[in-house]
């Protein structure tokens, strides 16, 4: 486990030594802050609704951008070979990278706590919904990160990694929006597979284990697929 943490720390240091982390945090907070402030000051509505509905969309673009380099760049630069000849297991490498991405995203989410505290002071927020929203965001970003990392492990090309990652996340997000066009049974299945469906459930403040399990499963499957890609030792 020590190695996993060392790897995660290295990735985080790299993200914070470059403009990456700062740009991500800054722009994310800028957009969510603008919408939050808009609602608060112009419409006199103290609500995190806009933050919670906007964040998954912002992450849909940001997360593939953050994760596109994770394996693709290492393959291209040859450092993956060196990494995989260290006395560490493949899964420790995968976990380390996922940990780093997750910490970055959860930091971004955590910084929006300012808004939550603001409305807590101003009004009488529905604590269940706020908790559900934050839990949903954290789980969602974990799943996004895993999918992005998987996409990065498919290719040496960061652009391709980004596009595949975005496409996968977008598809999973949109799955429950097309159920109107499909017969009932399939519609139910697609709904269950959709990222947004489970997110909306959590937003209501009902912490259902099925929703939590969904995100954890998506993360696990993405990690397993990444492990499979790594094991093939592509050039």
């Amino acid at each position, binding site marked *: 486990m020590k190695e996993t943490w060392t790897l995660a720390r290295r990735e985080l240091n790299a993200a914070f030594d470059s403009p990456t982390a700062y740009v991500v945090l800054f722009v994310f907070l800028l957009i969510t802050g603008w919408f939050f402030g808009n609602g608060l000051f112009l419409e006199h509505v103290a609500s995190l609704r806009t933050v919670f509905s906007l964040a998954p969309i912002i992450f849909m673009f940001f997360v593939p951008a953050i994760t596109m380099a994770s394996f693709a760049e290492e393959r291209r630069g*040859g450092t993956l070979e060196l990494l995989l000849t260290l006395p560490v297991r493949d899964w420790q490498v995968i976990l380390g990278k996922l940990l780093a991405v997750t910490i970055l995203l959860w930091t971004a989410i955590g910084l929006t706590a300012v808004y939550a505290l603001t409305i807590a002071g101003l009004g009488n927020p529905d604590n269940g919904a706020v908790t559900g929203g934050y839990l949903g965001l954290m789980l969602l970003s974990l799943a996004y990160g895993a999918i992005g990392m998987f996409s990065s492990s498919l290719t040496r090309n960061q652009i391709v990694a980004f596009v595949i990652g975005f496409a996968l996340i977008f598809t999973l997000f949109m799955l429950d929006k097309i159920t109107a066009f499909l017969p009932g049974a399939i519609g139910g299945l697609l709904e269950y597979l959709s990222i947004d469906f489970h997110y909306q459930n959590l937003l209501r403040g009902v912490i259902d284990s099925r929703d939590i399990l969904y995100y954890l499963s998506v993360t696990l499957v993405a990690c397993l697929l990444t492990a499979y890609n790594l094991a093939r030792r592509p050039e």
Partner: protein
Amino acid sequence: MIEVQQLTKRYGAEIAVDKISFNVKKGEVLGFLGPNGAGKTTTMKVVTCYLPPSGGQVLVDGMNVTQEALAVRERIGYLPENTPLYREMITYDYLVFAAEMRGVPSEKQSRRIAEMTEVCGLGDVLAKRIDTLSKGYRQRVGLAQALIHDPPILILDEPTSGLDPNQIVEIRHLITALGREKTVILSTHILSEVEASCDRVLIINNGTLVADGTPAELQAHFMGRQHIQLGIQGKEDDVLSTLESWGKAQLTGHQADHNGAILYDLSADPSDDLRPELFHLAVEKGWVLTELHGVQADLEDVFRSLTT
């Protein structure tokens, strides 16, 4: 220490390494020689547990690379071709990262890093980003990360490629010094390097082992003839006909040098040194002798004869 038994590695349908077998003794410095694409790097990748073998097995210190990969990796320090490093990291931070990943205990880390800095000459660049370093320094950082856990085995893939002559000499000295205590496998194209640093040489061509022995053994075994170069001024026709009738050596070529003499290349059985006889022949015939020396078959000739 390292046993490679009938190792085969396939990339899809292509056979990169075809039933190679060799042993490396403890404390030996082994040179891998071969044209590009011969299978040197692939063999190294199998020994370092990066790639699994398609056939055969590799044992490092008695441990199988597929079954006990982690234990094997702990014993090896590896520097891949092109020295891949995390370019955005600062040298010192990179060494700390390497030490931690290699399992160097935390109380020993600063001492090991200091030692590596000393041994690899990194004192001036510890605070610099790796992408600002020259190739020579990057190579040294690469060597430092391979040595930081004091492994008994070092595997270096073309450690001097791309370096200028001064840097090559420095790295070579380093490798020779390391080779005294550690088992080293290095691959290279530079034949003089092999002659200078290696105890034993393996020549690989098209995935198969074509030679295995000390540089001297290879030279003796494959170039079973002695070669003499004779330089004589003037009297070309006389020399040619005399040598032909003398018959003890074959004339393999002759050309004019830039000092007015003509150089004759002779090839003969290695049994007797023919140089004294040639000297007397020249004296007897009244030739003006400018040169008379034996040409050592060098490793390049061995290499070329085995790989073309």
